[in-house]
């Protein structure tokens, strides 16, 4: 089963919270504020100011709401809307006589905070908290400045109720973000572990496969060597060991990162022969495609057998054309006989002239 993507989960949770804040804000304005505003319009010093404030908040709610529902970030509009919300607050609290500031008719006090959350909850924890604080401090200052200092205790109670509802939302958002960060880190870790597992499994499989190859070819030779069953005075037995040694060198070379793997592996194949005093010329002519590993093995195998059993000299050439690669070897060696055979898309031709053998293995990209 695929692990859920950490960032996606966090995103979904925060969007959910944002939608919840939108729902509360959308409900508070018509359900809570509108009836208060409409009940006793005569109380207000300026009904027009109150209506403009209400309209500003409604507009803000609509713009922000659309963005939230469409999962679009607020971007620069965020700060314009914040200014609109605070303007609405100033309009609403100055449109009512000072003596009525703590009455039910001051509808805006409990509403502004929700708008701040609607605009800021996805922005972090500090910024919305500061804005809520600014609103609260402004409200207390206003109350004192207009000479209603004796009502501060009432405002403390109202503030406690309002912030008691709004601050937990901020706390929840902060907790979600922390949780999301943990989930992301954990998913990343799990992903790394899975990748490492897959790599290790592949390596293990590679090694098993290689060992399976060696078990059939090299291991019996080593067993014969340790039990003394191998007759090293027999030239053919020595040749079998030399071929196995060359195959091992090729196997090691297959795992090197080089520009021309075929040439690199051929160099490894001829190395034991060179150590045995055979003069080997390894050359290339023309550039061809790079064959896959299996093909390279099939191309180098017959060459390896000839070079390893060469008496004194071997000329190994790689001939490339845009659609074929040929590995050719001319050496003073023995082969079973002349002929041509094809297997797995590789054509091998053998020619014998006196003590000279010419073997060619050709791979074509198109057959």
């Amino acid at each position, binding site marked *: 089963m695929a692990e859920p993507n950490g960032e996606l989960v966090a995103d979904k949770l925060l969007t959910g919270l944002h939608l919840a804040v939108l729902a509360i804000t959308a409900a508070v304005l018509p359900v809570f504020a509108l009836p208060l505003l409409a009940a006793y319009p005569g109380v207000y010093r300026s009904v027009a100011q109150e209506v403009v404030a209400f309209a500003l908040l409604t507009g803000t709610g609509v713009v922000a709401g659309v963005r939230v529902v469409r999962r679009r970030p607020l971007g620069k509009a965020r700060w314009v809307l914040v200014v609109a919300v605070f303007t609405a607050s100033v309009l609403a609290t100055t449109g009512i006589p000072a003596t009525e500031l703590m009455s039910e008719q001051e509808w805006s006090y409990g509403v502004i905070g929700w708008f701040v959350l609607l605009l800021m909850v996805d922005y972090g924890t500090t910024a919305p908290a500061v804005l809520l604080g600014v609103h609260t401090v402004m409200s207390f200052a206003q109350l004192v400045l207009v000479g209603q200092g004796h009502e501060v205790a009432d405002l403390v109670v109202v503030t406690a109720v309002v912030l008691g509802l709004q601050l937990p939302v901020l706390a929840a958002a902060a907790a979600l973000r922390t949780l999301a960060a943990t989930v992301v880190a954990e998913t990343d870790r799990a992903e790394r572990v899975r990748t490492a597992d897959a790599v290790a499994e592949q390596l293990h499989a590679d090694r098993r496969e290689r060992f399976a190859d060696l078990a059939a070819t090299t291991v019996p030779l080593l067993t014969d060597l340790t039990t003394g069953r191998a007759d090293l005075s027999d030239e053919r037995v020595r040749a079998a060991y030399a071929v196995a040694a060359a195959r091992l060198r090729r196997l090691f070379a297959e795992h090197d990162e080089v520009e021309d793997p075929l040439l690199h592996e051929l160099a490894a194949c001829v190395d034991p022969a060179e150590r045995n005093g055979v003069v080997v010329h390894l*050359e290339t*002519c*023309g550039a061809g495609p790079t064959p896959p590993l299996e093909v390279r093995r099939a191309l180098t195998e017959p060459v390896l057998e000839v070079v390893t059993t060469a008496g004194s000299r071997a000329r190994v050439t790689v001939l490339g054309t845009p659609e074929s690669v*040929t590995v050719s070897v*001319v050496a003073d060696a023995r082969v079973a006989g002349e002929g041509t055979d094809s297997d797995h898309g590789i054509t091998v031709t053998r020619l014998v*002239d006196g003590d*000279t053998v010419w073997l*060619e293995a050709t791979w074509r990209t198109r057959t």
Partner: protein
Amino acid sequence: MANPDVTTVVVVDDHPAIVSGIGVWCAAADPPVRLVDSGPTPLVAWTDPGLSADVVVFDLQLSAGVPAYAELRRLIDAGRQVIVYSMREDRDPILSCLELGAFAYLAKTEGPGHLVHAIHAAGRGLPYTPPSMARAMTTDTRPDRPRLTPREVDVLVNWFACESKEMVARKLNLSVRTVSSYIDRVRIRYANVGRPAPTKAALVARAIQDGLIGLDEL
């Protein structure tokens, strides 16, 4: 004193071991080749007895790292048959030497067979293409190169791989003579392009005279 059957050679090479080695190969050559003089600078080819030698074997890398193209060119312009004998076997110096009009280019990794063959051929004014030169020709990408037919490329590449015209002939179901003529005709076409040189003209003239190549094929 001069025996018309003996090809005379002067060697310009600053490695005494190379000079001694060529001396031994020449002494064992059949028909005979006589090494008349040797020295580390082209001066030996401009003074007697080197001046009258039929063939100059010339090491391209005389002074460290800088190919001696200017000295090579002076020898060629004087009508000398020059076999360039060099450590380098990559394409570009080979093609440059052919362009200048060298008779042949041999890599020092190529054995006595090729050098002695080349000396004999040079003495007679007949083309000879060692395997490394065949490779340079088949991988030539210069815009003004002679165009080779697929069959010619096939023969040259097989010659490079196998170094035995007999085996190439058997593999491609051709006669040895046909294999040789494919290789030689490519060589003649190379002599017929680029900078004019007396040695190149002589090679082409001889090939036409021998019926190796027709005027219309050039």
